[in-house]
């Protein structure tokens, strides 16, 4: 099934608000949202992408590097990635990244992947649940100048220079073969992501970015200073690298708000209890009025 040299994977992941579990506590009656009430989670399909990369590593050898762009607290999903089996993780964080749309985001990811270098495969979840755009994967592939295979469901074969993948489409499936390097976006039917490995978790629980040092030292008072903690983490390969726009050579005008051609003109809140909702009396007049309205709105032909 596999006769391949080691394949090096870079997995692009995102920490997202858990929008699939929006409850009454998050949406208030007037339709405003209490964002703080939403837990931040590992974007579900990015976990499928990580799992696919880990399975490829088990078949061929190679490395799995996980990259995320986000605020310092996104280090949580990088630690989670280490616990699940990633070899290396990188946090891309910079105030100037803020306000990025998919184009500016894909530019930053492209810069980071190029800085890492030596990759055969880039993997990402098909889409993130906070935007559902499914754009960042293909846009990153275009910026890297490599082919993309979207909706990857199964890796069928890997040889030294080519990968064969089954894609899940709405009305069927497709099997495609492509040269390395290429980018895959992975769907949630691809696999069941493995949980954190307990031993890896024990070994790597201190993995951290510098902005977390103070909190760690409260919990582990043995570290007398940030410097002492930093030296310990560096020695044990637990210091999570943090790259800024300058570190990855990103151009000012292509990142954050300035690099984002789309602008939000306005936002309307959708009240869960639909305001356009009408009670229709269960009689002929009520139903005739409802049908007339649906015809008027082209809902019924």
């Amino acid at each position, binding site marked *: 099934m596999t006769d391949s040299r080691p394949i090096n994977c870079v997995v692009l992941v995102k920490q997202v608000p858990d929008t699939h579990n929006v409850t009454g506590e998050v949406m208030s009656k007037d339709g405003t949202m209490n964002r703080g009430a939403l837990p931040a989670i590992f974007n579900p399909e990015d976990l499928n992408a990580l799992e696919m990369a880990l399975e490829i590593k088990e078949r061929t050898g190679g490395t799995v590097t996980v990259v995320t762009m986000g605020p310092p607290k996104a280090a949580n999903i990088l630690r989670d990635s280490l616990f699940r089996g990633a070899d290396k993780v990188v946090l891309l964080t910079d105030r100037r990244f803020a306000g990025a749309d998919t184009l500016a985001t894909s530019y930053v990811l492209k810069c980071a992947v190029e800085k890492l270098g030596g990759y055969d495969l880039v993997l990402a979840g098909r889409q993130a649940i906070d935007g559902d755009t*499914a754009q960042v994967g293909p*846009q990153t592939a*275009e910026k890297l100048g490599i082919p993309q295979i979207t909706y990857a469901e199964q890796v069928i074969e890997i040889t030294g220079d080519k990968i064969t993948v089954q894609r899940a489409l709405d009305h069927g499936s497709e099997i495609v073969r492509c040269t390395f390097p290429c980018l895959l976006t992975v769907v949630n039917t691809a696999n069941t992501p493995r949980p954190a490995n307990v031993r890896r978790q024990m070994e790597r629980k201190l993995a951290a970015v510098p902005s977390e040092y103070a909190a760690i030292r409260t919990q582990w008072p043995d570290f007398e200073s940030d410097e002492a903690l930093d030296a310990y983490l560096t020695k044990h390969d637990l210091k999570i690298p943090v790259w800024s726009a300058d570190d990855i050579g990103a151009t000012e005008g292509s990142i954050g708000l300035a690099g984002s051609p*789309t602008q939000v003109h306005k936002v309307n809140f959708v009240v869960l209890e639909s305001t356009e909702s009408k009670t229709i009396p269960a009689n002929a007049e009520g139903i005739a009025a409802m049908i007339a309205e649906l015809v008027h709105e082209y809902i019924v032909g």
Partner: protein
Amino acid sequence: MTAKNIWVFIEHTDDHIAEVSLELVGKARELADQVGSEVVGFLCGHNVEVLAQDVIAHGADRVILAEHEELALYRTLPYARVAIEEIKKREPEIFLIGGTPNGRDFAPRVASAMKCGLTADCTDLQIGDYYVKKEDKTYKNLLFQIRPAFGGNLVATIVNPHTRPQMATVREGVMRKPAADAARQGVVEKITPTFDAKDLVLEVLSHQFRKSTINLKDAPVIVAGGAGVGTADEFALLRELANLLGGEVGASRAAVDSGLIEKVHQIGQTGTTVRPRLYVAAGISGAIQHRAGMDQSSKIIAINTDPNAPMFQIAHYRIVGDVGEVLPLIIKTLRERAMDQREAE
């Protein structure tokens, strides 16, 4: 002469244009008439010239037809290459793409190459003016790209004032497909693209369509029954209404468990996820697992004897009553309407 135009990506399989592409041609026609521009169908394929007239019949003024055997099946790189070259040459103002798997593979690739804005999965498009305070400048006749955001809890209007084309993908079934006018005239411009080896590094080894007798996902209307539909006769009413509306019959898990309908009809977290134009929930209480599979429907009619059924919270039309009495009323009203229309013609 061809600048400022509105382009539509024409998707096709097995000699049929995707419904969403024709829906978008109709929408593009509406927008183009507001600003006085042309509607251009962008059609790639092999031996697909026959489809061009259909695009024109639905409202296009012009079809750019790229013919090549390497374009027979959709593939990202060859399709994107043709699009990028033609966009650079002709500078369209707006480019609309159906929010299908292929459309959502193609659009971001093209937008990234053009460094232009792209909004995914729009549910509405309008033309409007946009004032940028920082520049003290009003951008006239921009494309307002309206889409749900944040898990469907917000609706955002997105604009791209500075980059062209203004690109958007649009959900299937949310725009109305215009009637075809076979007599409509338009220009078909045939082009023959060339490709490099690097455009062709991906091979399609096999391509399969799942054939299913029931197609819940594409149904514009779904009439679904739940535990409140107790008998086979009542399920027959659901079928009758679904047929009248050109839709399919769906079911909640409770109805499937009762044995009145097969599992392929099940909608919800463990069944199919749908977002039809109209969803009739008959006797479905509306457990979260069911709602997760249908709450994106454009309009929801809920019928239930229990006024506190959770389905009523997301329904646009609430009818408190018995399914066995309400469904015949709806069927009768629709039949009478159809008769009146026939007489009027």
